[in-house]
């Protein structure tokens, strides 16, 4: 077949056709994958919440509260048999060593930390990235940010450690100021 010549109508028609066909292919792919992706995102959030708070029987992710003065923070109340047993706070901090650290902090009804998980971070592998390790995170459990937190920072990763500690304290303050655990 001879090559199509570069006349204006030819170029116009061909580019339009290619764009239309591509758009149709993309639309079809999106239609198939979108429900799967939405479900995955939901599962991940439920998973993250249930890792840090005491056992609950409500749907914390459906009851999420966004404090008006802290729109980047989300609160997930956890209830069992209608009674408040705790809350998870999703919070991010820019005080780390490499970009944003996103945390999920769980609090029990007595105001102590029940769990901490690092959702996302870009700290230095082997140093700051150790904030994700059990040994560092488990120190928070049982301590109340209302008193002073007693945490051993990670050697050679003071900035990362401090960022997490400050974020946990801030999470508690925000939770308190929006009415605490209820």
């Amino acid at each position, binding site marked *: 077949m001879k090559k199509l010549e570069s006349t204006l109508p030819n*170029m116009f028609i*061909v*580019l339009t056709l290619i764009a239309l066909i591509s758009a149709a292919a993309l639309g079809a792919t999106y239609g198939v994958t979108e429900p799967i992706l939405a479900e995955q995102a939901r599962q991940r959030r439920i998973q993250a919440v249930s890792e840090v708070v005491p056992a609950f029987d409500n749907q914390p992710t459906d009851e999420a509260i966004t404090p008006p003065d802290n729109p980047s923070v989300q609160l997930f109340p956890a209830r069992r048999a209608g009674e408040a047993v705790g809350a998870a706070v999703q919070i991010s901090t820019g005080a780390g060593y490499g970009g944003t650290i996103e945390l999920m902090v769980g609090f029990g009804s007595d105001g102590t930390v029940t769990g901490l998980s690092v959702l996302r971070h870009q700290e230095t*592998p082997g140093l700051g990235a150790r904030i994700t390790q059990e040994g560092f995170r488990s120190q928070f459990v049982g301590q109340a940010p209302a008193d002073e937190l007693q945490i051993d920072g990670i050697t050679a990763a003071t900035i990362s450690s401090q960022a997490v500690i400050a974020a946990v304290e801030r999470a508690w303050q925000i939770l308190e100021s929006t009415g605490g655990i209820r």
Partner: protein
Amino acid sequence: MSSVTLTREFTKGFLRENPVFVLLLGMCPTLGVTSSAINGLGMGLATTAVLLGSNIVIAVVKDLIPDKVRIPAFIVIIASFVTIIDLTMAAFLPPLHEQLGLFIPLIVVNCIILGRAEAFASRNTLVASAVDGLGMGLGFAFALTLLGAIREFLGAGAIFGLPVPFLFDNPILIFIMPPGAFIALGFLIAVVNTLREKAGA
């Protein structure tokens, strides 16, 4: 086209014209994602899928595309393939997609893809273009996996996530950080150049 040249088109991507070690194309994903062997393999295979798809489509429609608008036409086709792969991976291979995240959309601007479209697929038959895409893609995947394996072995003391005795407890951290990518790639290119010289290439 005889099968001998088809074989040649297929194998050239591995050493003779390896996109990473010889052509030095696609350095951004090469340096960025190869902190472990599995990441390198995943990125390499995703690129292969895009390369194969775009080469085939471009070889089929090459006569319908007027010369003056061929580059925008190629880019639209490539970008569509990348987005389809991106969404499909996110839906069906979420852990790998999380690791490669940022780099999948960057396949669009990976010079290898447009380079093969322009230099090969727009001038050759469907079969030859498919073989070229597959060979170049797998050559890219091979290079990324090798680089990832070396960096993971030295920097994390593991290979494909399996710990290696001694090194696992005393890893050479710099190799999984960005400077390590440059160092490891530099040595690999030196090795490949020596091999090619010996082979008289």
